[in-house]
């Protein structure tokens, strides 16, 4: 590896870097591409959020008030697709773009041109997806899982949605390949695998999951496409197929996908908690092994999404126990985060607050997941608001909180300015309070039997829905504060030092803030004194 990764940019001698639109369209720079990913993700977060508020507004009171049921269903479908593929995944890829090369001492991503392509497919993919909302037959309304036969009965949108998903898949696979190649090939001398920051480790494993399952999703939706347009019978019992087959293939993708949405979040939290506890991460190696076990287990639990569909008893037992086993490595992680804080000299800046919020609230989501994994209980909870509460605790207070923690944590490194700490804290408390008002009552709604994906409901569910909607609007509009804080920090503010945070360790804090366009053109020499984690084996 050694001096091999000394960079050679073909712009070294002429100082002019393209400006304006060309700079972004043609960029091969990991920092610029990372920024584009993050901005795109934020935009999609707001679009998806607007859809969520339409859903919540309709559910404010029983009866049909604001939108017709078809449109409501389009909103639930689109909200999920936009948030998962447009907001959370690109945010993590953007963070990986910015931080992985900085954390391992690489001059850039391994395949810089492909990196540009991975990003630039996304705006087109989402144009294709969102355009369906403006077509005469409307957007997809079968739910983001696109179960047949329902999804096959929709209007013209199906073909657009499927092809948009193919584009997103191409983008994610190329992005993941790039990240793996970067991590395995571009580390600075001395940056052994067991010295890598956990964010890098979790992304390495996430990238593997992405390459393994995005093609499976591509296969599943391709079968939908041919069933609808070319007369195949994959999901048609009359021809010897089976609609349940779709669910199996989809969830073989879908469950690893939820770990794709959370593993990088684990990595982020594992960076932030040690910094603000001024201690090394507790149980570094066990964190690595726990991440790898979760990734492995994620391939053998998919049918916990299908307990009510009619499976052999043996299969249900297997998937129930396998699912519960995931709680073990997850528990190891939570334990390690808590143990890291134990006797640390802790301070509570905004990133730390979000990370702590993550630990507590993600755990609630994990516990409701365990409840859902119990087959007989799942018969009751499945397709109710309890599931909605579960996955929003893991995805909003889990993945999204971690992304926000990461943004606050690294924003000074990106912009060279400190963000407004006071506003950051307000943003955290505002979000944490209202997100619980938004999602906690949904547990009760689900336990009481309110089905998900339905625009109207029985009157006994009225109070909790009203509370939830109020929480939703407060949380949602509160995020404009986040946008404002970022804007303010980009424009100016107190100068950030290179290290930014007193307890921060690792290579990314050795470069100036803002990080110059090209960093580590000559790879740094890494040993235990600069590495975040001492490699006891090296």
């Amino acid at each position, binding site marked *: 590896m050694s001096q091999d990764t000394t*960079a050679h940019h073909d712009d070294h001698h002429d100082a002019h870097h393209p400006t304006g639109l060309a700079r972004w369209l043609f960029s091969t720079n990991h920092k610029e591409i990372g920024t584009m990913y993050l901005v795109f993700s934020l935009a999609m977060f707001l679009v998806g959020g607007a859809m969520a508020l339409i859903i919540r507004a309709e559910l404010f009171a029983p009866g049909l008030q604001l939108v017709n049921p078809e449109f409501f269903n389009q909103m639930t479908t689109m909200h999920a697709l936009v948030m998962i593929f447009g907001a959370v995944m690109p945010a993590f890829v953007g963070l990986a773009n910015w931080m992985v090369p900085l954390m391992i001492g690489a001059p850039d991503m391994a395949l810089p041109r492909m990196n540009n392509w991975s990003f630039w497919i996304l705006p087109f993919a989402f144009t294709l997806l969102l355009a369906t909302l403006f077509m005469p037959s409307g957007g997809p309304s079968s739910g983001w899982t696109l179960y047949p036969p329902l999804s096959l009965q929709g209007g013209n949108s199906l073909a657009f949605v499927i092809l948009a998903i193919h584009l997103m898949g191409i983008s994610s696979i190329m992005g993941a390949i790039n990240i793996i190649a970067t991590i395995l090939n571009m580390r600075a001398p001395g940056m052994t695998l067991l010295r890598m920051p956990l964010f890098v480790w979790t992304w390495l494993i996430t990238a593997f999951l992405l390459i393994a399952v995005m093609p499976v999703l591509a296969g599943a939706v391709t079968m939908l496409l041919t069933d609808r347009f070319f007369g195949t019978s994959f999901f048609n*019992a009359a*021809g010897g197929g089976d609609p349940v*087959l779709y669910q199996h293939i989809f969830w073989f993708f879908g469950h690893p996908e939820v770990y794709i949405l959370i593993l990088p979040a684990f990595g982020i939290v594992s960076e932030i908690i040690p910094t603000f506890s001024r201690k090394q991460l507790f149980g570094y190696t066990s964190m690595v092994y726990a991440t790898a076990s979760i990734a492995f287990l994620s391939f053998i639990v998919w049918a916990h999404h299908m307990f009510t569909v009619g499976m052999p008893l043996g299969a249900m037992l297997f998937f129930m126990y396998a699912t519960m086993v995931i709680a073990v490595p997850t528990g190891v992680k939570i334990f390690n985060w808590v143990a890291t804080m134990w006797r640390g000299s802790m301070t509570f800046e905004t990133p730390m607050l979000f990370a702590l919020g993550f630990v507590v609230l993600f755990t609630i989501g994990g516990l409701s997941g365990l409840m859902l994994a119990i087959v007989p209980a799942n018969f009751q909870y499945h397709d109710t608001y309890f599931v909605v509460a579960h996955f929003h605790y893991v995805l909003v207070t889990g993945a999204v909180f971690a992304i926000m923690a990461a943004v606050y944590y690294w924003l000074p490194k990106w912009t060279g300015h400190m963000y407004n700490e006071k506003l950051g804290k307000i943003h955290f408390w505002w979000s944490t309070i209202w997100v619980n008002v938004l999602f906690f009552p949904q547990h009760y709604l689900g336990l009481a039997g309110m089905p998900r994906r339905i625009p109207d409901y029985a009157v006994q569910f009225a109070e909790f829905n009203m509370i939830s909607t109020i929480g939703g609007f407060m949380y949602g509009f509160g995020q404009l504060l986040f946008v404002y804080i970022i804007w303010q920090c980009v424009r100016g503010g107190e100068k950030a030092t290179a290290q930014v945070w007193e307890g921060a360790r690792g290579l990314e804090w050795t470069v100036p803030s803002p990080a110059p366009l090209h960093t580590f053109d000559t790879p740094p020499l890494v040993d235990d004194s600069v590495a975040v984690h001492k490699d006891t084996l090296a």
Partner: protein
Amino acid sequence: MAHSSYYVPHTAKWPIVGSVGLFIFMVGAANWLNQGPTGPWLFALGAAIILVMIFGWFADVIRESQGGLYNQAVDISFRHGMIWFIFSEVMFFAAFFGALFYARVLSVPWLGGEGTGAMTNALLYPGFEAVWPTHGPAALGGDFQTIPGFGLPLLNTLILLTSGVTITLAHWALKRAQRGALVFWMVATIVLALIFLSIQSYEYVHAYRDLGLTLGSGIYGSTFFMLTGFHGLHVIIGTLMLIVITIRCAFGHFSKKNHFGFEAAAWYWHFVDVVWLGLFIFVYVI
């Protein structure tokens, strides 16, 4: 010759061309599927842009490679890229093989009344017998016959396996810097690939015209044509790679030590080969 540092291109114009191409291609495809009038035209335009992008992009890479801009580390990055790309392709095929196994082992027997399927069979599809091949209880697509494995498919298997040998002989020739032998074995591989594709097309015509076996022949037709069809598509892509690489071999682009482009195409070819073995066993023979 090789530069000692990692080459990071300054700007890249092809990716955005590729994205626009993909977008037009997809819009065209979706329009076409929905019987829109502009569909086929946009589809063709998109495909053309993508082709231009591929040629332009690879031309840039080849130029840089010949110019000695790539060092050992860049080479390893490319290797990672290709290996993981092939892995993603394997997983794509896995989805379709999974569908085949699920139908054969689980859902078709259930439709026939096995396991928990007794009531489904008795109430919805009385008299449906679970045998493979099947076009389902509704006998979709009408009567059909299958293609026996130990005829042309066996021949095709031998052809592909032989092509795996010839490309290896080409590799050996390359490593001994014998350009004549290299080009000879590459051409032999391409010829075998083209024979394979011709036999496969003949088989498709035969299936549609004489056997009544179509994409609409229930789950058998679906799995048969989607698996062999995607495989065939990958053989076409692989053959195009082989053709480009052979031309580059003839121009002396590769050295004994430095010939990743060749290896990437060879890996891809072996992948296509292995998928075919799976197809031969599980689709044609068993």
